[in-house]
């Protein structure tokens, strides 16, 4: 069973997405773009998308764009459109509108199929698997023959079209509105070249389209033109030259206009910099540098935005509704990023529109969601739980050492190796905890057990692997295993009884609120544990090598040890650090001696290897336990 993709087959741009375990992924094309121009070029080789667009000016008769305007339509119906395009549209034997390029004729579904095939290949190459099924979107106002043509296009492209869904419906799905009951939804779609408004109603999981309206030739491109015209005007005012005759200048101005328009969605003012825009015989090179404020832009395009409200009002009338009747408003299409558009929509409907999902991609995302449902993904796949709070054990100093972080997807297994705190420690206590606080005592005890029979050894030598294993039913098994004797002990804890969402939220909030003080406590304990290790090792070394150094040096070390032992009784972290450093300094002489001995003997160094690490984890037990910090698989 392969994945089913969702395709937004747009007039000017198309987009393809897929759901992966509940997350929508927009699939990029080979050029890295998340949307693909709906353009097909015929010539030496067939080109689709960005590459086709790049040569459209030199190959206008054979570059087919906006084919969507001809899908499922009779030749007699489309005379208005055929005037606007440079490629040839002819009448097929059955009366349909077909395109003719390079002496061959193609039906619109065949051309759309080329775009779909391109998207299919992009998806296959991105996902690494074959794709045979898809859900494709169409405008809500598409009639039967237009929908059938879209389905045919899918078939020609080698895709089984599981469903054709309406674009506004797809957008609603993307925002999860299918979960609502009896709500009225308005979808405001302002793209690059067209404006569509749709009024839907959701009930019993089904969407019903009440009305549609719009303007098939109004979009972001018109906004660009307004800015362009303003720039040309300003330049004419200053230099008396009409730049619209200069192809090069016009190109730069058009690009700068689009760029400025996009920037003004996020900043209040932008600078349009076009140095050397023109060269005049007498004046020499001329430059253009203009500041465009968001307010000025809004003045330039205000009437365009206002003009969208006409179709909106008409759509509401047809649906026999008023703006207040609308429960949800959705924004679709790149141009809805403009703050003024959002404001206008917000004011008109007196509510905040949904706009969190990328407006260029939201229809494809909705199609992907529908695709996943039809693929049975939602039914078959087990929805995995997560463990709501962190799990761990208590270690030296009364801290909690986390082994499984909260929100880890289960089932899961994690192990960590610990060790003993004292010499000849023969048992360890495993105190299982749940929670987010640093100190064990502030967390919830889930269980407790002991592992006996650890062979006598110096502290830090034994290796005890503690494994946390949560199975698919949410049952936790904690095992402690002595790696030497292979002896093990375990405990089974059933899924947290009575932990509801509030408990979880509170636990997390508590941890946040106390994080600073918890952290301080933990740091102090870590320091103290480190100090303990340093004292232990130094005392050990002193016993072995003490006679090799001078009495003076020996006394210095002993003094430092005693001072540190005193400081350990208190709670002053910086004093601990200071005295630890002093001891380590005093220890240098001893260390030197030890190295000399080792070089003479060529023996192994045991003491320095057990240099305590920061963040050392300890298992608190009847007897103290230390950890080496190594994680075993």
């Amino acid at each position, binding site marked *: 069973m392969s994945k089913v993709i969702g395709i937004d087959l747009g007039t000017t741009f198309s987009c393809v997405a897929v759901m992966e375990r509940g997350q929508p992924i927009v699939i990029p094309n080979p050029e890295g773009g998340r949307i693909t121009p709906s353009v097909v070029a015929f010539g030496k080789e067939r080109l689709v998308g960005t590459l086709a667009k*790049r*040569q459209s*000016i*030199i190959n206008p008769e054979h570059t087919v764009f906006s084919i969507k305007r001809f899908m499922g339509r009779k030749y007699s119906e489309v005379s208005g459109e055929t005037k606007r395009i440079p490629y040839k549209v002819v009448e097929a034997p059955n009366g349909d509108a077909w395109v003719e390029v390079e002496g061959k004729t193609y039906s619109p579904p065949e051309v759309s199929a080329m775009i779909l095939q391109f998207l299919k290949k992009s998806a296959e190459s991105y996902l690494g698997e074959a794709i045979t099924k898809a859900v494709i979107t169409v405008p809500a106002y598409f009639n039967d023959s237009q929908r059938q043509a879209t389905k045919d296009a899918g078939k020609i492209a080698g895709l089984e079209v599981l469903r054709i869904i309406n674009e506004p419906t797809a957008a609603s799905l993307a925002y999860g509105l299918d979960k609502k009951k009896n709500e009225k939804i308005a979808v405001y779609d302002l793209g690059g070249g067209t404006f569509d408004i749709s009024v839907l109603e959701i009930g019993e999981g089904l969407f019903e389209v009440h009305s549609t309206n719009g303007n098939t030739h109004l979009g972001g491109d018109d906004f660009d033109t307004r800015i362009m015209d303003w720039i040309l005007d300003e330049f004419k005012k200053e230099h008396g030259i009409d730049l619209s005759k200069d*192809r*090069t200048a016009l190109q730069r101005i058009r690009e700068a206009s689009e760029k400025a328009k996009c920037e003004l969605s996020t900043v209040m003012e932008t600078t349009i910099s076009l*140095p050397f825009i023109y060269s005049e015989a007498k004046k020499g090179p001329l430059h253009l540098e203009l500041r465009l404020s968001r307010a000025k832009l809004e003045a330039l395009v205000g009437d365009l935005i206002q003009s969208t409200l006409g179709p909106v009002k008409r759509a509401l009338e047809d649906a026999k509704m008023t703006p207040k009747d609308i429960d949800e408003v959705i924004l679709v299409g790149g141009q809805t990023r403009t703050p003024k558009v959002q404001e206008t929509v917000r004011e008109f409907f007196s509510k905040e529109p949904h706009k969190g999902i990328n407006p260029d991609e939201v229809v494809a995302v909705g199609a992907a969601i529908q695709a996943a449902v039809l693929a049975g993904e939602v039914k078959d796949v087990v929805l995995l739980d997560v463990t709501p709070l962190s799990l761990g054990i208590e270690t030296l100093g009364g801290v909690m050492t986390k082994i499984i972080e909260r929100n880890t997807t289960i089932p899961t297994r994690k192990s960590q190796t610990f060790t003993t705190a004292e010499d000849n420690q023969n048992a360890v206590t495993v105190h299982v905890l749940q929670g987010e606080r640093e100190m064990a005592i502030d967390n919830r005890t889930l269980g407790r057990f002991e592992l006996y029979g650890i062979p006598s050894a110096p502290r830090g030598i034994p290796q005890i692997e503690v494994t946390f294993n949560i199975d698919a039913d949410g049952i936790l098994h904690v095992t402690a295993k002595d790696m030497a004797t292979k002896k093990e002990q375990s405990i089974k804890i059933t899924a947290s009884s009575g932990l509801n969402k509030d408990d979880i939220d509170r636990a997390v909030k508590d941890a946040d609120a106390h994080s600073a003080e918890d952290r301080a406590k933990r740091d102090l304990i870590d320091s103290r544990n480190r100090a303990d290790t340093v004292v232990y090792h130094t005392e050990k070394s002193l016993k072995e090598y003490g006679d090799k150094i001078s009495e003076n040096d020996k006394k210095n070390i002993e003094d430092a040890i005693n001072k540190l032992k005193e400081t350990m009784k208190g709670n002053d972290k910086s004093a601990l650090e200071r005295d630890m450093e002093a001891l380590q300094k005093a220890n240098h002489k001893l260390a030197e001696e030890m190295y000399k001995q080792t070089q003479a003997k060529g023996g192994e160094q045991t003491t320095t290897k057990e240099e305590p690490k920061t963040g050392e984890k300890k298992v608190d037990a009847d007897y103290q336990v230390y950890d080496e910090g190594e994680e075993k698989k």
Partner: protein
Amino acid sequence: MIRLKKGPVTQLKEDFEKLKNESKTHYENYLRALADFENFRRRKEREIEDFRMFANENLLNEIIPVLENFDRALTVKDVDEKCESIKKGVDIAYRQLKSVLEKFGLKEFSCVGQEFDPKTCEAISFIETNDKPKNTVVDELSKGYLYQNRVIRPARVIVAKPSLQHTDNQQEKSISNEQEKGA
């Protein structure tokens, strides 16, 4: 008719078949999940590598127009001596900037004289001429740029087209505009 109850053996056989099928389904789902994971892992590795390699792409895309402006400045002709001297200095700084960007993987390229290739060029307009072979790039509005050998900005070029009969020059221009709007 006497109806016989299902014997224990029959029941067991049925249960066994049912469990066998369930087990098979579980196993398949498990394999599928593994396969999905493997694909996902590989894809993420590719994406991370991509991200690492092209981390500077956004920055470079913003810098390229600035480079082009420097280019324009330096192609201004007929300047007096003082200007010429300033021009020289600016040229040195500009080349310095370009070499820094080259170090980070940015490379300039030109398509003039070559056959038009949409992978590297974007046609801005055409010139009707029979002096050059069809679809040759005769001039460029701006150069193209590669970043780590990937085209991040196609060269903007003017292409040669054989002389054709056009009834209306105006129509041609408006067609191009509409195309740009629609395409």
